[in-house]
């Protein structure tokens, strides 16, 4: 038995490693910790995330590092997504610092699970092997299933966890079957050999079914129609911070792997899958936006909105090429910032025992709490796609990529959808400024971690919208690193 270890480049797994170690530290520290100092765990997690982000930043440009027998890449694409995940996890932790107290959720496991979920995401973004992608996806998913159900006092949270779990496991089955068939078609599960095989031999029936099943699997994770039915219930039932994490982080991670597999590895046979994705994208945008029109619960509305945004992101996938890829990555950041911000405001409005999640609860918010109202307005407008906010530039890039790739109708459907979406986003703003609401007794001081999170999100939303080119070119460069 000869056992030669593969070339191990520790740098490539550094972000993953750091996050895992932080998660385990949080778990262990939790055991010896007194009850009243548990919020320290949040700060520990935050430190870990910031350190990871810094490391990832420093790793920028270390392209083409072969590691772990070609299963893990340290290309700019991965680093970009590492940073995105750090941003998402960091903002979630900041929001959670306030939220966990009101929601009475145990800290130790919560932060550890957030960190482990982020570990899974980083693996998904950096893996160049289908089975590793699957493992990363499962690590992330299982952590998020638990997080969805961690609000033990609320039956809705249990139900959310169950629905998410059942449909998530169901989707993993499809994804795995897709992997199996692709393995059957190409003889490998590594993206490099698959790309070679596909490039050389084109598609085969097995590969086609495999791709279809992969689209089903990823479609569930990114909440694309018709695999979206779990989304509203799960988003509504889960603890709000978890919903934010789920809506942004999980989606970003799924798209990271989705885009790496389809845009890069299976790029040679893009004609085979673009048709399906075209339909899915159009459906996703339309169904998401139209259903969102009638929602009264803000978390549910944001859930449908996130479905719609998955549709926009899928448009970028359909467009493909450098521009589409870059637009996808740019819009993921944009979507992350504005959605996290919006959920941050939802957290801020909620009280202990009274979530205040109905639209009516936002009546008059703009007068009672101008800063919060202002922030919510920014996020809602950005989600609609009003210039000069980031939502606008993102959509602009996506639709122009679609037009350039020749999908004009898709772009038109997307623009129309944006117009429709304006109705329910603006309704929130209207509610905040044009209606008198019962006074919510007190709102939390925004000088808290939560306030910081909302502020960061708001500043990001505005700045990235006003100066899009830097981040766009960065996303472009990252996408190109896929080679």
């Amino acid at each position, binding site marked *: 038995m000869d056992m030669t270890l593969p070339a191990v480049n520790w740098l490539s797994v550094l972000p993953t490693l750091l996050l895992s170690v932080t998660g385990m530290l949080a778990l262990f520290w939790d055991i010896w910790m007194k009850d009243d100092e548990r919020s320290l765990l949040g700060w520990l997690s935050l430190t870990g995330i910031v350190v990871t982000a810094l490391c990832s930043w420093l790793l920028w440009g270390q392209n083409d590092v072969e590691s772990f027998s070609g299963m893990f890449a340290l290309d700019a694409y991965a680093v970009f997504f590492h940073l995105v995940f750090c941003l998402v996890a960091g903002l979630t932790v900041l929001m959670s610092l306030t939220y966990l107290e009101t929601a009475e959720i145990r800290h130790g496991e919560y932060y550890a699970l957030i960190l482990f979920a982020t570990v899974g995401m980083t693996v998904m973004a950096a893996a160049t092997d289908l089975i590793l992608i699957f493992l990363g996806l499962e690590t992330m998913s299982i952590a998020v299933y638990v997080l969805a159900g961690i609000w033990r006092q609320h039956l809705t949270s249990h139900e959310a966890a169950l629905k998410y779990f059942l449909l998530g496991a*169901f989707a993993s089955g499809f994804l795995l079957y897709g992997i199996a068939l692709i393995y059957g078609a190409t003889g490998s599960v590594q993206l490099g050999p698959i790309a070679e095989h596909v490039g050389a031999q084109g598609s085969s029936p097995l590969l086609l079914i495999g791709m279809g099943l992969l689209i089903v699997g990823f479609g569930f994770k990114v909440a694309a129609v018709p695999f979206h039915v779990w989304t509203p219930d799960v988003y509504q039932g889960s603890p709000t911070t978890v919903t934010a994490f789920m809506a942004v982080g999980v989606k970003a991670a799924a798209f990271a792997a989705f885009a790496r597999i389809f845009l890069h590895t299976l790029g040679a046979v893009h004609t085979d899958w673009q048709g399906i994705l075209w339909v899915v994208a159009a459906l996703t945008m339309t169904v998401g936006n139209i259903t969102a029109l009638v929602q009264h619960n803000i978390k549910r509305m944001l859930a449908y909105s996130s479905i719609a945004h998955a549709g926009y992101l899928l448009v970028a996938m359909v467009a493909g090429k450098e521009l589409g890829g870059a637009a996808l990555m740019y819009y993921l950041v944009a979507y992350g910032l504005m959605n996290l911000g919006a959920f941050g405001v939802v957290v801020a409005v909620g009280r202990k025992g009274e979530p205040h999640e109905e639209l009516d609860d936002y009546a008059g918010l703009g007068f009672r709490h101008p800063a919060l109202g202002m922030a919510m307005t920014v996020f809602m407008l950005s989600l609609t796609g009003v210039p000069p906010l980031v939502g606008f530039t993102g959509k602009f890039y996506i639709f122009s990529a679609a037009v350039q790739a020749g999908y004009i109708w898709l772009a038109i459907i997307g623009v129309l959808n944006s117009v429709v979406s304006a109705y329910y986003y603006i309704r929130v703003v209207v509610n905040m400024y044009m209606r008198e609401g019962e006074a919510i007794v007190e709102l939390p001081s925004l000088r808290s971690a939560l306030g910081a999170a909302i502020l960061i999100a708001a500043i990001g939303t505005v700045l990235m919208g006003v100066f899009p080119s830097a981040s766009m070119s960065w996303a472009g460069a990252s996408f190109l690193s896929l080679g």
Partner: protein
Amino acid sequence: MVPTSYHLILSGILFTIGVTGVLLRRNIIIIFMSIELMLNAVNLSFVALARHFGNMDGQIIVFFVMSVAAAEVAVGLAIILLVFRGRETVNVDELNLMRW
């Protein structure tokens, strides 16, 4: 000798049975077991393909799939217990606290 496609078709049949179970049953635990059946069908594919290609990758993937299945089962059953304690039901149709 049986061609590999036979194994793949058998795997496809089992997978379809699993999917049908998920869609048709309303007892959460049976739905969950159907999902396990799906995963096993996939395992069958992997093992058959490993035999076909003559490399161990397929079998090792099965090893990972088993770990994932074990993890999913642990968490899934915990969630089912949680739901059952709160609602005393394992019928998906009765889980409708939120608008569907």
